[in-house]
């Protein structure tokens, strides 16, 4: 929390402090509604024009035993009056709804940070559940922080004692009491959340009313008791002009796919099977039936991808979405799509593996799975989204490549950007690429495996077209005719054609563009969701006078045509990845260039400071050598 200006505010006897950047973490039991509370704070801050970035962190268990450490659910949001790239490293403010939430999160709170606790939950029974020996509110362990205590449960009950609602229902309003407190502390208006509650509980107005009342009570409690002595304000960020909305990665990806459907004139078909953290893509697309979107919740991951292949054969813009374990099940069918050369987009919203791994935690460890996880020589184009808002553009780009080259295309996203959010400057619809294409209709000289000269794409001839009857299949096909062929020379030729088709995409994507000097001592290279942390760290390093360049890859197969040249221009290339060095492996093999891996496999994203320290280390070590 960096304070810029202090001034005396007139409306309130307490001081008001202006901050340019603050990180707030809401933590409580997974039944306490912390994700909801955080989301409301985020949306209100977005409407105020702050730049922001969010990081939900919830357990895989839907309801772990209440009050226990595994049951803690947290939502971190960073708001700022300037352009930020990450949800922040350590929180400035922690809201802890119970002892377990405090224990699990206090270690990360900045020194002298604000911690707000619901004292009603600080009971011997709950200490036991959270495996706490002594009352942390009394034992001095919080001395280094600014502790604010409130009987949130009691106060909520008192507020709603005339509501006629039962105690259980009343207690479920306490997160809105807490939200009201935080709204007061950060001088945010409550109208947006109030409107949202009325909409959400349109059919149960008594619940809407109770939550609004609890929220206002939380606000008034702070106003009257002067609990905090100080209030904070965060001004709107100076973002480029335009219309903005706050968007999660999965939403943005879904919108990108719908946009691609509209821009191509092809109906969108999604085959999916529920899996964390990809399910929201299914939910979002299922709600867009007015766009002619067909969603199919299949019996399993295999059926989901196979249905998408069937829809593609029929002329739809076909999508399947999953996460690593589900993709493993899909791999045989993805290979079929590659072999029959039908367009499809496969979204892998990565999570921490291997096997079931840590479903709600993030990782970038499926790159090699997507690259190589199929039998035989089976090249597929791979794209990676860099941030929540980038998912929109990546969705469209993946569809463009799939349709133009008649090939299944992989999108890599991950839990961090899928459920994280940031402001998105909305594009002009007319500026979106035109993806219209033609099905083959002319029977004259038709052969299903005859290729376009430049793209090597085969024709898309859909059933129902007279005179183009043909058979597809996973068995090797004769060049041109597509008939079953076991001819050795033909197999070699077809293998190289499939390879070459994907390789040629390199000429059809933007060249790698370095942020900073185009050559020099150190290049920070990244891909996927690390972009925010890398950008933030590089910007900070530069402010400290360090010279460091940055390059972020969105196309991982094929690589941009100039990548080898760019890499050769740097003495050292540092590649932070949330895996043990997967992209580095590919780059070394391809360019014979030494790439230094900075690995992190903790199920959590890189922090800006981790990267910054690494940059400092490298540049300092080098300056000693020289």
């Amino acid at each position, binding site marked *: 929390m960096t304070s810029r200006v202090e001034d005396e505010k007139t409306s309130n006897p307490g001081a008001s402090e202006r901050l340019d950047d603050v990180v707030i973490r809401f933590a409580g039991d997974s039944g306490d509604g912390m994700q909801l509370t955080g989301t409301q704070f985020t*949306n209100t801050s*977005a409407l105020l*024009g702050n730049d922001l970035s969010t990081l939900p962190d919830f357990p895989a268990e839907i309801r772990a035993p209440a009050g226990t450490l595994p049951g803690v659910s947290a939502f971190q949001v960073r708001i700022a009056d300037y352009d930020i790239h990450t949800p922040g490293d350590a929180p400035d403010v922690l809201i802890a709804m119970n002892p377990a939430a405090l224990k699990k999160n206090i270690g990360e709170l900045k020194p002298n940070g604000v911690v707000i606790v619901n004292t009603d939950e600080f009971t011997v029974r709950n200490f036991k559940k959270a495996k706490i020996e002594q009352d942390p509110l009394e034992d001095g362990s919080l001395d280094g922080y600014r502790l604010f205590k409130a009987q949130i449960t009691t106060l909520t009950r008192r507020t709603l004692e005339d509501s006629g609602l039962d105690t259980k229902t009343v207690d479920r309003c306490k997160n809105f009491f807490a939200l009201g407190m935080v709204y007061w502390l950060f001088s945010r208006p409550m109208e*947006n959340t109030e409107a949202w509650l009325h909409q959400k509980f349109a059919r149960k107005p008594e619940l809407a009313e109770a939550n609004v009342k609890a929220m206002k009570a939380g606000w008034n409690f702070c106003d009257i008791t002067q609990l905090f002595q100080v209030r904070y304000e965060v001004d709107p960020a*100076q*973002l480029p*002009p*335009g*219309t*903005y*909305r*706050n968007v999660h990665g999965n939403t943005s990806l879904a*919108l990108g796919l*719908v*946009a691609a459907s509209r821009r191509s004139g092809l*109906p969108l*078909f999604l085959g999916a099977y529920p899996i964390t953290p990809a399910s929201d893509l299914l939910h979002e697309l299922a709600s*867009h*039936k*007015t*766009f*002619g979107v*067909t969603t*199919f919740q*299949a*019996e399993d991951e*295999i*059926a*989901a991808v*196979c*249905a*998408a*292949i*069937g829809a*593609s*054969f*029929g*002329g*739809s813009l*076909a999508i399947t979405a999953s996460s690593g374990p589900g993709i493993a099940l899909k791999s*045989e*069918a993805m290979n*079929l799509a590659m072999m*029959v050369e039908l367009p499809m987009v496969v979204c892998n919203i990565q999570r921490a593996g291997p096997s079931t791994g840590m479903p709600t935690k993030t990782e970038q460890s499926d790159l090699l799975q997507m690259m190589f996880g199929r039998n035989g020589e089976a090249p597929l184009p791979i794209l990676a989204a860099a941030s929540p808002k980038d998912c929109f553009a990546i969705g469209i780009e993946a569809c463009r490549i799939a349709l133009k080259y008649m090939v299944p295309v992989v999108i890599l996203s991950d839990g961090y950007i899928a459920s994280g959010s940031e402001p998105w400057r*909305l*594009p002009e*619809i007319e500026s979106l690429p035109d993806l219209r294409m033609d099905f083959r209709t002319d029977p004259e000289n038709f052969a299903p495996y005859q290729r376009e000269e430049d793209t090597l794409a085969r024709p898309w001839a859909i*059933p*129902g077209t*007279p*005179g*183009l*009857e*043909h*058979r*597809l*299949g*996973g*068995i090797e096909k004769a060049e041109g005719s597509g008939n*079953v062929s076991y001819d050795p020379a033909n197999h070699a030729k077809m293998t190289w054609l499939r390879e070459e088709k994907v390789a040629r995409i390199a000429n059809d994507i933007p060249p790698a563009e370095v942020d900073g000097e185009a050559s020099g001592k150190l290049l920070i290279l990244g891909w996927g969701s690390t972009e925010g942390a890398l950008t933030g760290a590089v910007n900070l390093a530069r402010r400290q006078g360090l010279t460091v360049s940055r390059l972020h890859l969105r196309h991982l197969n094929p690589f941009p045509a100039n990548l080898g040249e760019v890499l050769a221009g740097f003495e050292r290339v540092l590649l932070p990845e949330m895996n043990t060095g997967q992209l580095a492996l590919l780059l070394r093999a391809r360019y014979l260039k030494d790439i230094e891996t900075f690995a992190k496999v903790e199920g959590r994203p890189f922090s800006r400071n981790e990267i910054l320290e690494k940059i400092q280390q490298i540049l300092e070590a080098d300056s000693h050598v020289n």
Partner: protein
Amino acid sequence: MSTEAPVLKKKDFQSDQEVRWCPGCGDYAILSAVQAVFPTLGIPKEKFVVVSGIGCSSRFPYYMNTYGFHTIHGRAPAVATGLKMSRPDLEVWIATGDGDSMSIGGNHLIHVLRRNVGVKILMFNNRIYGLTKGQYSPTSEKGKRTKSTPMGSLDNPFNPLSLALGAGATFVARSVDVFQPHLKATLQRAAAHQGTAFIEIYQNCNIFNDHAFANVTDKPARTEQTVHLEHGKPVMFGKEKRRGLRLKGMELEVFDLVTEADEEKCLVWDENQNSPALAFAMSRVLPPEMPTPIGVFRAVERPSYESAVVSQIDQAIEAKGVGKLEDLIYSRDTWTVS
């Protein structure tokens, strides 16, 4: 449309690919029956799509001069579901075998049936794995000695019709490769059905499981041990129709028709019953104790899955109008920076 369509013939559905099943394989007869029936359906040739999985029977699409898709092992129903959902105008047929549909693809089979997707499933049952050269299949009889079960298989076999009925199938039938008129008539019935049509076709694999259906196809079993189920008619069999099936409690039993009046005691076949219970009981009627019933076991009308999918989209559009991309992207809380 149908008046303008050219008259199609069997040869219009024969592809230029050399058929490569073993000489004497039952698959030839099935191929011939399908090629004979398709031109009679009044459907333009380009609307047909034959989808298959892996196995001998799954080579089927290559020999049909229609759109075709030879997919991967067990997955034909899933591919066909996506195709039919997105293109309800197409006539989608699946060629599959007992291993493809009941073993590796068992999950997709039960789900396509419960959803009632408008596809026709031809399940070639030869009770053996042919393409991998002779291992036992999920419909092989218990105790069967094969390369993979030298001391006899330990698995209880699936009863394909019981399985289909249990999964909620709306059309279930059985026919036999060599009973050409019966097979063609059954294919025609399947083609006319709205939802999923499931036909188990007894198919002789003369290399790895020859004579598997001798108790249906050989004389005198062909007449003496085979029951033709016909809707609305008493269930009788034998050359002189002197034997019949009647209900005893929850099960069916064979009895001899001695007098005219005994005909009254015969079960009168009703393929349209809402409950699948009777069809299920009939699916359990099998040799050696009982004869083999062939024909339509169940045919009930329910809306097809794809029509329901399309209708939800239509409803949404009727209620809210065709979606506008601009509204979608700019829909949620937005703010402007100038």
